[in-house]
């Protein structure tokens, strides 16, 4: 291993779901201590800490966490980057290690979202006595239901529908997206850490309460509580550690973060496509591999409608061919490129800032051969993708150590 290679030494995620008796600091501490133990190191070994908790971004999770697990005086970066917060925390630590400032660091992401309801809606304040203009559009009322929607299920529904407009599909669009969701719900039955472990038929999914057509409730990511943490180590430092630590370490072959470049319609509907494709291109180039080399992919299926477009954005399929690629079974766990074998956000859950590290945990689990019932046989390379609206996209490519 080269001195400046970057490795995941230890990693952990809590069960996603309801944790009524734990606050965000408790959950973050659970994941952090478990990740340190998984790597066979302690907080004393860490040279940097990056921590993300989107809903409490002003609270300084990193320092709060230190008070639970060890105040060692190291630099702390509290990060917030929408749904890419966890990936951003990880990448912050990777950059610190890569720069040579330290040889080990800890990244943590945590969120408490159980019962949070739908995110993003701007109904506006209660109607005042007289219309009053406010905001950058000089509006007299909230946009929601009057000029479109900012609720995530509706935004991402449009993202999926836009794809079917650009690449016309003769079949039943509603059922198509339900089938994507059914794949993920089936996968969740093998993941004991998933918030919802329930195999659902396409018909059951379509009969769930409609949230924003074509996304029913089962096709939306589950608001849940959870945390994930990862210990990053340099190649030079890893060489000084035990054979077992070196064997279980997972190589970070690419760590990419992008934002959305200007596109004509991005002012109207967030463009989650261009920045994902750019991130994927950069990641494949950095890792020196192509999409065909991937043994599994965890991508950001915040809604079933989102998963479809990312088959294309991550170049898993020929451009414009995501529907046919899915329908041929490629994304299923026995397909050419299994996607979201964890159950995806639709069933595993989506505690926002934890998600970007939990996806990495899933990949690492398979690359280490520790994924139990859902193990993808002989997995050597995996890709983890997250996207936060606004937008931010994180792509990491991971490879098993080969030692």
């Amino acid at each position, binding site marked *: 291993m080269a001195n400046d290679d970057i490795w995941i030494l230890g990693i952990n995620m809590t069960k996603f779901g309801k944790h009524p008796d734990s606050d965000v600091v408790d959950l973050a501490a659970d994941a952090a201590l478990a990740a340190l133990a998984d790597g066979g190191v302690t907080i004393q070994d860490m040279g940097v800490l990056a921590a993300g908790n989107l809903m409490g971004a002003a609270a300084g999770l990193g320092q709060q966490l230190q008070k639970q697990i060890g105040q060692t005086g190291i630099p702390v970066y509290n990060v917030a980057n929408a749904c890419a917060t966890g990936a951003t925390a990880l990448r912050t630590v990777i950059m610190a290690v890569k720069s040579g400032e330290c040889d080990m660091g800890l990244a943590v992401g945590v969120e408490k979202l159980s019962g949070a309801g739908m995110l993003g809606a701007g109904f506006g304040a209660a109607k005042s006595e007289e219309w009053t203009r406010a905001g950058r559009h000089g509006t007299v009322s909230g946009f929601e239901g009057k000029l479109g929607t900012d609720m995530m299920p509706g935004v991402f529904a449009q993202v999926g529908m836009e794809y079917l407009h650009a690449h016309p599909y003769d079949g039943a669009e509603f059922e198509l997206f339900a089938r994507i969701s059914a794949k993920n719900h089936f996968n969740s039955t093998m993941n004991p850490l998933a918030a919802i472990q329930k195999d659902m038929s396409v018909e059951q999914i379509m009969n769930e309460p*409609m949230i924003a057509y074509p996304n029913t409730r089962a096709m939306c990511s589950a608001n849940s509580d959870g945390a994930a943490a990862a210990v990053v180590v340099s190649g030079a430092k890893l060489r000084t550690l035990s054979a077992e630590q070196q064997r279980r370490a997972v190589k970070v072959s690419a760590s990419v973060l992008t934002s959305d470049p200007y596109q*004509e319609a991005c002012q109207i509907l967030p463009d989650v496509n261009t920045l994902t494709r750019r991130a994927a291109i950069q990641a494949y180039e950095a890792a020196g591999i192509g999409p065909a080399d991937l043994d599994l992919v965890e991508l950001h299926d915040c809604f079933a409608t989102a998963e479809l477009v990312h088959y294309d954005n991550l170049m898993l399929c020929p451009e414009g061919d995501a529907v046919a690629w899915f329908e041929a079974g490629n994304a299923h766990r026995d397909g050419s490129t299994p996607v979201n074998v964890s159950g995806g956000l639709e069933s595993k859950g989506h505690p926002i800032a934890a998600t970007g590290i939990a996806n990495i945990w899933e990949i690492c689990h398979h690359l280490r051969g520790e994924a139990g019932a859902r193990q993808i046989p002989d997995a050597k390379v995996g890709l983890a993708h997250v996207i936060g609206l606004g937008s931010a996209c994180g792509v990491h490519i991971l490879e098993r150590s080969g030692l």
Partner: protein
Amino acid sequence: MWRRCAVSCRADRVGLGPVGLWSYHAAIGARPGRPEGGPVSDPIPMVDYLVLGGDPHLVAHECTSCGARFFDRRNACASCGAVDSFSSVDIPTAGEVRAFTIVKSWTGGDDYVPAVVDCGGTSVRGQIVNTPPDPEHVKLGMKVRLTTYSIGADSTGTEAITYGFEPA
């Protein structure tokens, strides 16, 4: 359920300044309120990029350097970076549905149909109206045209008008 806007507004086609039509209404004293028994105030657009009147339409800020269009104010162009170099441009009122969703109302109201409408090459955010909110009536690629309707009146009787797109 949707009312067409039949009223006219004299602020039609006033250039979009920093506060758009609002400044015009304020200047002519049409807002806010009215004396007891006086004439009802002109309706106001829900957003300052909607121009009311006999020919309701949207107005965007267009970058004079690269042509990128924005419905809100920008300090510089998000596309090319040109600083403070925008002109006003009218957006075509005819368009095509490029994406839509149907949001289920959980408050007892009507379901609504947010959409992205391609109006002659400019993407516009709005809702599909004057047709049942279901996938049998709303289709990708359907032709639509801009329409306006009231979202209610304030305590002075001034109505706020928003826009939507109806099947053409």
